């Protein structure tokens, strides 16, 4: 469907949002929320950031005013779509006590919010290619068996995905080397690329699904000219070219095997606070804990899952103690899982190169630099 390309002006962008809303979607988009860009309900294009960029480096994230008309120059936001599809907390068993026994109460339909009748139908407008790649990774965890996670599945099935290819990389981005960006490959309904040489910005639109084609046809956008397409593609290529960080992920399984006792783990563990920020901002970290809750009289109760992190001491607790007690072993689990073992489990790396864990690590630990040190390939991940 890549042969079909359209040109969207500002009026089309507004219609894109309203048509999706008319089709019953809960439209969500990135917005400036205090000191960061975050996802929230979107009613019109004016709510999107405008002339906003972001500056990141290890342990650093600041929004920056830019002079151009760009709406999508802020890289990945600190929150990712996992917050909406693999929600931070969800009750999945409702039960009632019954004289020493218990029975399972009917709950909401799978994927529905507490008290809600049906799972939400989200349309995400303005997700980054790395966000999209992260969803494909979560799909592998929750949908590919042997079991299907029914709550994620119900929300994911409905979601309409409008990805915006990046034409501005942040300093912490390394999606090009992870093959997850800055241009989206597959899995979207509509892919947009921002053309910022004009004001207001125009968008190249490409459809990745039948419902994507239907949406663009419904907003009656004109076909894109070859010159316009070429300029948009070139801007996206530039965003890849400026990325200095890279991770040679295909070597990771072998690197992990030979560097399991590398002194680097110990050195990094002295800096790492085991705070779990990296796993929370990571768009693919899926681990959860379960918690029990009972009414004060014990009559009703249930179980919820909540986001967890392999950086916690209790994560590996079995009677007698935890398997991974040292911070060294927990950092090693995180990096090893993201880059190496995920490949053996699901066929891709677990990392998309979004760089969130680098920017949001209070100690400024940089996964690309750590991996390069373990692999012995460079001074650091940013080395030329």
């Amino acid at each position, binding site marked *: 469907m890549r042969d079909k390309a359209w040109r969207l002006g500002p009026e089309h962008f507004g219609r894109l949002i309203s048509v999706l809303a008319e089709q019953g979607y809960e439209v969500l988009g990135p917005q400036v929320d205090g000191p960061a860009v975050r996802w929230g309900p979107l009613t019109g294009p004016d709510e999107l950031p405008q002339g906003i960029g972001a500056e990141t480096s290890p342990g650093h994230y600041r929004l920056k005013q830019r002079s151009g008309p760009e709406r999508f120059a802020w890289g990945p936001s600190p929150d990712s779509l996992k917050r909406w599809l693999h929600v931070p907390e969800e009750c999945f068993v409702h039960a009632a006590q019954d004289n020493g*026994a218990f029975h399972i109460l009917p709950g909401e339909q799978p994927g529905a919010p507490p008290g809600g009748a049906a799972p939400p139908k989200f349309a995400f407008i303005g997700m980054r290619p790395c966000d999209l790649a992260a969803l494909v990774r979560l799909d592998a965890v929750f949908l590919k068996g042997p079991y299907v996670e029914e709550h994620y599945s119900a929300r994911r099935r409905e979601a309409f995905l409008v990805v915006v290819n990046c034409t501005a990389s942040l300093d912490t981005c390394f999606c090009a080397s992870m093959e997850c960006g800055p241009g989206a490959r597959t899995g979207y309904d509509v892919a947009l690329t921002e053309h910022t040489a004009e004001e207001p910005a125009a968008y190249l639109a490409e459809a990745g699904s039948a419902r994507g084609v239907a949406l663009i046809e419904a907003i009656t956008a004109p076909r894109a000219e070859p010159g316009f397409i070429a300029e948009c593609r070139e801007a996206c290529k530039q965003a890849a070219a400026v990325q200095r960080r890279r991770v040679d992920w295909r070597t990771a399984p072998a690197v992990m095997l030979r560097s399991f006792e590398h002194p680097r783990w110990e050195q990094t563990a002295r800096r790492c606070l085991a705070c779990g920020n990296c796993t929370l901002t990571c768009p693919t970290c899926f681990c959860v804990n379960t918690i029990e809750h009972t009414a004060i009289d014990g009559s009703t109760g249930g179980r919820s899952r909540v986001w967890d992190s392999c950086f916690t001491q209790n994560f590996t607790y079995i009677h007698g103690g935890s398997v991974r007690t040292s911070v060294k072993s927990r950092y090693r689990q995180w990096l090893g899982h993201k880059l190496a073992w995920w490949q053996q489990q699901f066929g891709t790396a677990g990392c998309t190169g979004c760089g969130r864990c680098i920017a949001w690590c209070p100690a400024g630990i940089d996964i690309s630099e750590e991996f390069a040190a373990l692999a012995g390939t460079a001074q650091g991940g940013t080395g030329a």
Partner: protein
Amino acid sequence: MTTHQSTPVSPVPASSGPMTPLPARLISVEKETHDTYTLTLEPPSAPGGELASRFRPGQFSMLYDYGVGELPISISGDPERPEQLVYTIRSVGPVTTSLVTRAPGDAIGVRGPFGTPWPMTEARGKSVLIVAGGIGLAPLRPAIYHILRHRGDYNRLVILYGARSPRDILFKKELSAWGLLPDTQSLITVDYGGVSWRGHVGVVTTLFKSIRAQPAETYALLCGPEVMMRFALRELQIRGLPKNQIFLSMERNMKCAAGFCGHCQLGPFFVCKDGPVFSCAAIEPWMDLYEA
């Protein structure tokens, strides 16, 4: 986002996905040792509940105690008696303690069975060596039951069991009864004997010299503390057992048993779905890595 909803709003039927525990009635609680109990349950009466007792030796269930919590527990009963669900539980924490103090008639939530089984089919025509430590005998008992029911399918059966002390010996009567059967050895050792103990003292590998079976035609099934299994698999290889005939059962923290919670990971493996039973060929590289 808030979570719990005590009064259901929409009258949707309760989910019966792999994450929903089905209530199963407790028939009996039998004391095995000072801290270990065997619970016998009726299969859940809810639709699909009969599947809970259709298991293969080595598999486990998730047992849920209402309001307290949920844990993976190996099935220790006879796979050919699907009318009952049998679990042997050592009470070491809040959930296990609560489970073993439940009274007959109470309900316990059951999910499963989950995980990979012992290689009972591959081991046909061969001798089987069982090496168990402590509560590790529980997931091996279904394998023993299976062999005894299909005795002609297997050659010799050797059971080596190590317990901490004489009062920790699990299934003591059965262990001595099995030892009296033809072509079967059943040997026990303890770490600390005390004055009245007349049997072996020492770790379970010290019993290996008494094994009467041909290594090349023997399948070994191991379950017990990780350090015990590490030394046992080394020792078995020295004695000539090939890696692909040695199997062991791993234990890890598990919150879901379906591959969703991530807690049970060991390198590239999810112990819940790639295990708990692994061949030595697959798991050995990970056994020697500290804090993997």
